[in-house]
């Protein structure tokens, strides 16, 4: 077991649903309300030093309860190791705490997740669409967004 998983298990055992290693990469499934403190520990622990938030994204599992999973990828530039955190989020009113206070780079990632999946980030300074345009209805990467739905801004001429 890697030092990351050991530390997570020791310090945050109660906040974890699952942890392990898949295809050579560590992962942990974290309660969404504890995601900020777990991330901060990953960043500030001198044995871990995950100083680089690579990506924030989400997955829609329409058959699962809870429906969404927000996925965070961390990398440690000084120690050259990486870990993936996953936070299950309920589908009816999806909201997770924002990581912008810890990593400025989380800003646009979280806006993209909001735009594509409609998951809100509590505490985000400017949560609005980033890829789609104003007036776009719905969140296109949700599985229940109709695959043929088009919202053109300039009408079909033909």
């Amino acid at each position, binding site marked *: 077991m890697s030092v990351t998983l050991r530390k997570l298990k020791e310090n945050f055992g109660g906040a974890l649903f699952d942890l392990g290693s898949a295809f050579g990469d560590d992962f942990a499934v974290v309660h969404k309300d504890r995601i900020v403190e777990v991330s901060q520990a990953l960043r500030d622990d001198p044995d871990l030093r995950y100083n680089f938030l690579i990506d924030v994204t989400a997955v829609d599992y329409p058959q699962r309860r809870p429906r969404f999973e927000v996925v965070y990828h961390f990398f440690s530039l000084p120690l050259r190791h990486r870990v993936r955190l996953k936070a299950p989020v309920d589908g009816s009113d999806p909201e997770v705490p924002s990581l912008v206070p810890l990593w400025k780079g989380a800003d646009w990632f979280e806006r993209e997740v909001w735009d594509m999946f409609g998951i809100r980030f509590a505490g985000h300074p400017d949560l609005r669409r980033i*890829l*789609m345009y104003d007036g776009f209805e719905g969140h*296109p990467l949700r599985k229940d967004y109709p695959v043929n*739905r088009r*919202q*053109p*801004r*300039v009408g079909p*001429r*033909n």
Partner: protein
Amino acid sequence: MALNTPAGGFFASRLDRMIGWARKYSIFQYPFVTACCGMEYMATACSHYDVDRFGAGMPRFSPRQADVLFVVGTISHKLAPTLKMIYDQMCEPKWVVAFGVCTCTGGFYDNYATVMGIDTIIPVDVYIPGCPPRPETVLDGLMKLQEKIQMGGGGQGSGNWAADN
């Protein structure tokens, strides 16, 4: 040297033909480049293939100075109003070339974000298929555009021509 004019002192000629000939060798293009097709556009424009041979060697980056709108690359719904505005800003006579399969039909995209062919927004004169089109295809499309300009056709999407792939 005395001009051999018919009685009455007028020329029997085709002014529109001469204007068409002049226009087809002074194409000022506006490259509306959004995606990977742009690399192939640049390859065509540079010395190896050299669009200057066709009098199209001077791209203008203001639509008000351009005759031909080259739409090069995928157009998203977010960008569509901008493309329409650029087209509206161009002076008559004007022509539009759809460069690459994304601008022709949407290409392999069929999703919430992509315009399924720019001819749903603005009229198109010449379609150049390919993903991306080879420079030879582009030159073929350019020559077809010249032919169309010579014939006095075009602007306003009068008849749609396609480059041979």
